[in-house]
């Protein structure tokens, strides 16, 4: 047992209050060298806040932090770094205007004769990323890469220091299986070297695969600390959500049997140079189509074409049988298409506005300038969806930038649901969402499709795709490689084979 070792890090009685929200109350946390310790909890439970208190982003109202027995007062992330605490925060927090090399090294550049040694840094950056099995042009701007790669770069940055404590706040939310395995390999190695690691994730599989110990938070309070091997999944979940999980019963039979409505969307040879090769797709009313593929396989890009967020160079789109041009999102929205972007921070939330305003934005966009939804009605709508999606905090006038990541995602979903679209495109909607909410969202998708809504569902979690979709379209290298009708006989293996190109 690890009890005989001295903890590397101890947090005791941590309390943190934001105006109107008690994010942490009297939380304690211990971290031992050579262990991976998971923090679990629903969206808004206070996991990220605990991390941010530890690394000096927020100051705590009460409580003490001890590193290797001596109390520390961390005033800012810089000091945390100097103390050997290396952190990957939730959401990518890098500078997208800088190159990948710089993002890995900034703040601790390699100097030679008083100047930055760019050459050396470049080769070292390549090495760091190679550990994560990523070979990209590191001199390119970070912004030219997808969220997933940015996430890997952030991890690379955190790994590139000799730290005593490594904190990873939902590092895997946008990674696919291969990358996760790669990452876990690295984590295991570091653990063996004696590093103390905090790992936060909403994926139970990953938690059980990598962590030694779990601390559960609920509503800012400590529920308990458990050894992973002694805690069955069901119990963990019920500790997190405070009640039994009413799991999504696999509806795959239903899914397979479901008869198709008439065709809603027909896509023929739709293409955009450099991002999507000519693409065909039929989407029926009330159908859920899954888009599967590896990182950068072009799923997001296809979705953007269908929404008019990018302009297609060729091909045509028919909606309800009539040919349409989708050059700007507004056109797509007016045709009943909704698109929930994967990049919540850059393309989703309007940080300075309230939950209410964020929810009604798209609806108001359709209504136009003068058909203003009265404030009272807005609040009603917001309240309704806050309840439906279990958004926390429940106050519709809270600024969205103060919400936890998962709750922001739910607000985005609400924004599109109230427009009552015919086709809902969801790009990684379950990213960063806790297990309870994930189940809710999937249930919601199924019930919406029953009411006749068509859904295009992009997700890196094949399990989710298999569970909900009627049809699965697999993309590889920006091209459609196959279309699979879902049913009992289809396995994750089958799809992965297609994604990877035959060999698994």
């Amino acid at each position, binding site marked *: 047992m690890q009890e005989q070792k001295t903890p590397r890090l101890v947090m005791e009685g941590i309390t943190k209050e934001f105006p109107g929200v008690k994010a942490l109350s009297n939380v304690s946390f211990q971290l031992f060298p050579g262990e991976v310790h998971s923090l679990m909890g629903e969206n808004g439970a206070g996991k990220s806040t605990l991390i941010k208190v530890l690394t000096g982003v*927020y*100051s705590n109202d009460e409580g003490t932090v001890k590193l290797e027995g001596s109390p520390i007062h961390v005033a800012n992330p810089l000091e945390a770094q100097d103390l050997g605490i290396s952190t990957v925060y939730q959401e990518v927090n890098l500078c997208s205007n800088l190159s990948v090399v710089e993002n890995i090294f900034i703040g601790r550049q390699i100097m030679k004769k008083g100047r930055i040694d760019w050459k050396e840094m470049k080769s070292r950056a390549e090495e760091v990323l190679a550990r994560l099995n990523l070979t990209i042009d590191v001199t390119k701007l970070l912004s030219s890469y997808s969220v997933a790669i940015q996430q890997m770069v952030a991890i690379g940055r955190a790994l590139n220091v000799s730290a005593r404590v490594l904190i990873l706040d939902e590092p895997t939310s946008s990674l696919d299986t291969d990358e996760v395995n790669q990452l876990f390999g690295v984590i295991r190695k570091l653990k063996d070297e004696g590093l103390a690691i905090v790992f936060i994730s909403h994926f139970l599989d990953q938690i059980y695969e990598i962590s030694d110990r779990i601390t559960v938070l609920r509503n800012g309070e400590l529920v308990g600390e458990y050894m992973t091997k002694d805690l069955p999944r069901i119990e963990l979940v019920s500790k997190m959500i405070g009640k039994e999980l009413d799991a999504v019963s696999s509806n795959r039979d239903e899914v397979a049997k479901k008869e198709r409505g008439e065709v809603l969307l027909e896509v023929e040879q739709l293409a955009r140079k450099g991002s999507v090769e000519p693409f065909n797709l039929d989407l029926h009313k009330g159908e859920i189509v899954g888009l599967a593929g590896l990182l950068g396989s072009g799923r997001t890009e296809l979705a953007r074409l269908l929404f008019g967020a990018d302009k297609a160079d060729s091909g045509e789109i028919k909606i309800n049988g009539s040919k349409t041009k989708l050059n700007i999102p507004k056109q*797509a929205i007016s045709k009943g298409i909704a698109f929930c972007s994967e990049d919540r921070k850059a393309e*989703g939330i309007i940080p*300075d506005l309230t939950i209410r305003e964020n929810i009604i*934005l798209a609806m108001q966009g359709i*209504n136009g*300038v003068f058909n203003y939804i009265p404030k009272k009605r807005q609040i009603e709508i917001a309240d309704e969806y806050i309840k439906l999606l279990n958004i926390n905090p429940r106050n519709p006038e809270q600024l969205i930038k103060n919400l936890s990541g998962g709750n922001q995602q739910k607000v985005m979903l609400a924004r599109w649901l109230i427009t009552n679209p015919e086709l809902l495109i969801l790009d990684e909607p379950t990213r960063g969402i806790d297990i309870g909410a994930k189940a809710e969202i999937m249930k919601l998708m199924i019930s919406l499709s029953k009411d006749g809504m068509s859904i295009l569902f992009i997700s890196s979690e094949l399990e989710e795709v298999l569970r909900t979709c009627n049809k699965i379209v697999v993309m590889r290298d920006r091209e459609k490689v196959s279309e699979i009708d879902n049913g009992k006989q289809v396995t994750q293996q089958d799809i992965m084979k297609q994604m990877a190109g035959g060999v698994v």
Partner: protein
Amino acid sequence: MAKSKLFWPIMVLVFILVFNLFFDPSFFTVEIRNGRFTGSLIDILNRGAPLMLISIGMTLVIATKGIDLGVGSVIAMSGAVGAMTVTGSPEGSLTPLFLAIVLALGVSVLTGVWNGVLVSRIGVQPIVATLILMVAGRGVAQLITNGQITTVYYEPYKFIGGGYLLMLPLSIFIVAFVFLIALYLTRKTSIGLFIESVGANPSASRLSGINSKNIILMVYMFSGLCAGIGGLILSSNVASADGNNAGLWYELDAILAVVIGGTSLMGGRFFLTGTIIGALIIQSLTTTIYSIGVPAETNLVVKAVVVLIVCLLQSPEFRNKVFGAFTRKGIKDTKDKGVTLS
């Protein structure tokens, strides 16, 4: 939220006004003279009218993360167009007056279109796009007036900036009218929401189906219009048009008013009422400097100090460090801005 933002600017305004009492005990008296209300307070409202108008337009531009440096020149152009239109007009008819108003405001809105197109369609950075008009607009104004200070003899023209209605200067009513319209449009229609969302996150707004280009175009047009009205008032008030000097440096005062009023130059949330208070602070300060006999060469220093004081009072960080140094809560709030970690 908006209320607490307004508290300190209002305090400063009140302080400046009360300060005047020491030099002029009759400062707050409003008396009836020649059948009109007169008094320093009325003067401040009256003289501050153009600045308030321009700041209203500027607020919306700034809310979209833009800036409009061209307003000073638009003032000059609008005044020039107005004055040139009525020069030599006969007294009896009102037609030239209306023509002048329509033409002047038309030109002003056109300048707004110009700025808006440069910013929203061509993608020029707002500060440079409007800098072009700032430089060239004054040239156009002088071109219109042929470089002369054109004096207007046509009486009705003087009514816009010098006339009275219900014993109060007409310009006060004009400001009130524009302010209420702006308030209505931003509160009772979705324009306000759209402006704020475009300012805070343009790409997310676009994906939500908002035509951000048109919103941006519109705010610049509105800003142009406001500047145009301000220009007419200024020109009518002195019954002349001065292409070179009319509205000089108004853009800076307007931006100042907007910021004092609590709107951030980073776009997003805006506060129209705050802007009005900001403009009034600037105008009262100017009037105070004139009336208490500050030597001309120290004007700028006084202004700098007051601006800094207002801004500091508005900063929660400052208030906490100075007033709340001993309360735990004070210190805590400061830190949680997250962005400004020392």
